[in-house]
């Protein structure tokens, strides 16, 4: 009410409107908090020492006994804000004691001596240690690299195959077209876990088990039906006369496809690409079935190493989650500009 301008007389309908708006905003705020809380929680954990996460009372929810509103506030703020990082601690002079207790024989000729030293010395824990540990003590960089290679290849190959197939569906009539289209639909209805064993057998029989290629093949194929449907729908909106014009201008049907149709279909291509990429980027099931080697693991498998049977290093796990979110977020932000329709407007009448 205080926000209303001076001299503002509130009529009945206005006050009703005000109430309505308040309720809506309250609901929206609650929804936002619900959506943001888990993310904030993960970010906060990623800065914490694994021990403090595990022993924290933060998991005792809701606060027991006669909880006041303040208790709730404290609980949620503790969950999200890593207070302990801001406490000024006296840093014990651990380095010295360690060296005294366990002296290392430094061979002046050993080129790796400095590395040994590093291994032996447990660096003092910093607030960002979880992040540095990911890359120094674990193969996280390798896992991300694996995931990027696999996801990009799967997405590129998948989109290429989908585009060519969708072109055939959109432009040509061939025997069995309806049947094939319907069949593509039905494959979408089979739950992924049911396909795991057949996919494994196929990949194995191609001698592609435990390789990038096997995983890429399996991943690019699983998203094909969706991509084909998206692209076919889009291709059908592009006037056929454009391809006719290109063919009269000297294109073969294939070059007309690549020079005219594909550049015009960037919005649909971007959607298909993003879909293939994210489903490959976040895939766990296929990777866990087809990949054995630690060096070939995508991050989805690698990150599981942090939550073992006997200890769960949630700090590392959370830091890893934050890191892997960055590439996909960047990709989405970058491709947003391509996912604009209306590029075909103006080429033909209208």
């Amino acid at each position, binding site marked *: 009410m205080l926000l209303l301008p001076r001299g503002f007389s509130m009529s009945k309908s206005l006050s009703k409107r005000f109430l309505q708006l308040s309720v809506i905003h309250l609901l929206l705020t609650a929804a936002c908090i619900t959506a943001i809380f888990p993310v904030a929680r993960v970010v906060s954990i990623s800065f914490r020492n694994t021990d403090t996460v595990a022993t924290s009372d933060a998991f005792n929810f809701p606060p027991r006994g006669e909880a006041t509103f303040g208790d709730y506030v404290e609980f949620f703020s503790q969950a999200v804000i890593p207070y302990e990082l801001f406490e000024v601690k006296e840093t014990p002079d651990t380095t010295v004691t360690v060296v005294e207790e366990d002296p290392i024989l430094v061979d002046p000729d050993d080129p790796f001596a400095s590395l040994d030293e590093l291994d032996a010395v447990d660096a003092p824990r910093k607030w960002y240690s979880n992040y540095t540990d990911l890359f120094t003590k674990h193969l996280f960089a390798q896992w991300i690299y694996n995931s990027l290679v696999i996801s990009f290849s799967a997405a590129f190959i998948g989109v290429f195959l989908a585009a060519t197939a969708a072109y055939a569906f959109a432009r040509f009539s061939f025997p069995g077209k309806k049947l094939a289209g319907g069949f593509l639909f039905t494959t979408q209805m089979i739950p992924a876990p049911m396909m795991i064993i057949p996919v494994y057998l196929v990949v194995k029989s191609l001698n592609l088990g435990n390789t990038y290629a096997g995983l890429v093949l399996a991943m690019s194929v699983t998203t094909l039906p969706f991509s084909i449907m998206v692209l076919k729908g889009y291709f059908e909106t592009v*006037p056929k*006369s*454009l391809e*006719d*014009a*290109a*063919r*009269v*201008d*000297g*294109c*073969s049907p294939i*070059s007309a496809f690549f020079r*005219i149709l594909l*550049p*015009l279909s960037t919005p649909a291509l971007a959607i298909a690409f993003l879909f293939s990429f994210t489903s490959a980027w976040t895939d766990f099931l296929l990777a866990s079935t087809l990949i054995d080697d630690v060096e070939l693991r995508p991050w989805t498998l690698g990150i599981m190493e942090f939550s073992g049977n006997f200890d769960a290093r949630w700090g590392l796990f959370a830091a890893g989650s934050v890191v892997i979110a960055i590439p996909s977020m960047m990709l989405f932000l970058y491709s947003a500009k391509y996912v604009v329709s209306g*590029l*075909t*407007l*103006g*080429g*033909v*009448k209208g």
Partner: protein
Amino acid sequence: MDVQLEIKNLEKTYDKKVKVLKDINLQVDKEEFLVLVGPSGCGKSTLLRTIAGLESVTDGCIEIAGRDVTNAPPADRDIAMVFQDYALYPHMTVRENLAFGLKMRKTPKEQITAEINRAAKMLDIEHLLDRRPAQLSGGQRQRVAIGRAIVRRAKLFLFDEPLSNLDAKLRSQTRIELADLHQKIHATSVYVTHDQVEAMTLADRIVVLNGGDIQQIGSPMELYQTPGNKFVASFIGSPNMNFFDGALETKTDGRRVFSFAEGEFDFTNAPLPKNDGPCTLGLRPESIKVLAKKGREAEGPVDVKVKVALLEPHGHENHLVGLIESKQVIVRSANPHRLAVMNSSKKGDVLEASVDRSALHWFAADELGERLETVHPTLN
């Protein structure tokens, strides 16, 4: 004159059932402007697309500049085509649109630039070269589409109803520009339209198609003055020709009379088919002349009385929809004296009219309605 396009016994069948083109034979001379005209679904666009190579041919052969291209892809036919919906590439600028065909043919860069400048100047689109098609108006897009054909200097230009998406004013203006352009560059052109005004004004020769068959080929005036059959007669000319189904008979006193359900005409001294019998009379709207009160326009026999149903003033001329008993006829006149009579009439008035004996069209009474030869009575 060299033959630039020759079509022999062309047939096109869809799905082994629907015959869209039936035994088409056609020759187009170099620098000629040929117009294919016909109602929608008559196969004119299909014929154009088979010439372009965008549709396959079931039977027959197509030669362009003496070379058999029946099975050649469109790219190898050295043709340029202007589409009904313009078909400009939306992701390219006007300049790139114009250059695309030349680029695909590996033309040197300097030549591409020169050709684009020449075409842009000719079409007055120089200021639009760096825009995209979406930023152009309909008329401008049409110019670019024509420009894309011009830069190619192709052996044959194909136009697929290029003006049908423009509004009426722009259409007549672009029509003039097209005619002007043809006089400048003398490109051999095949032009498809369903608009007989475009056909009449642009064509050196017109091909009238119906149901996949060529009905008649001839110059615009030939088609207008001596239509080969009832279909051509009804299709060419606006407003449509009036048809009277009836029979010609010779009376006992020697008079030759054409009688139809609603009346009869005494055509004793007119050029008529030799034989009596059932036939169809075609009268152009301007051949039925409303008689004025006085002067030259008052002369002539009163052949028919027309009851006014509707008057359509066009300014320079009037179209009058009238009734002879229950038969509807259209009468047109641009003569000021006749206009005065028409303008002063009201719905329901009965006007006297005379039929121009020199402009009678006679057709056989059968389904095809072929034109009947006439003989002048004085020559007998």
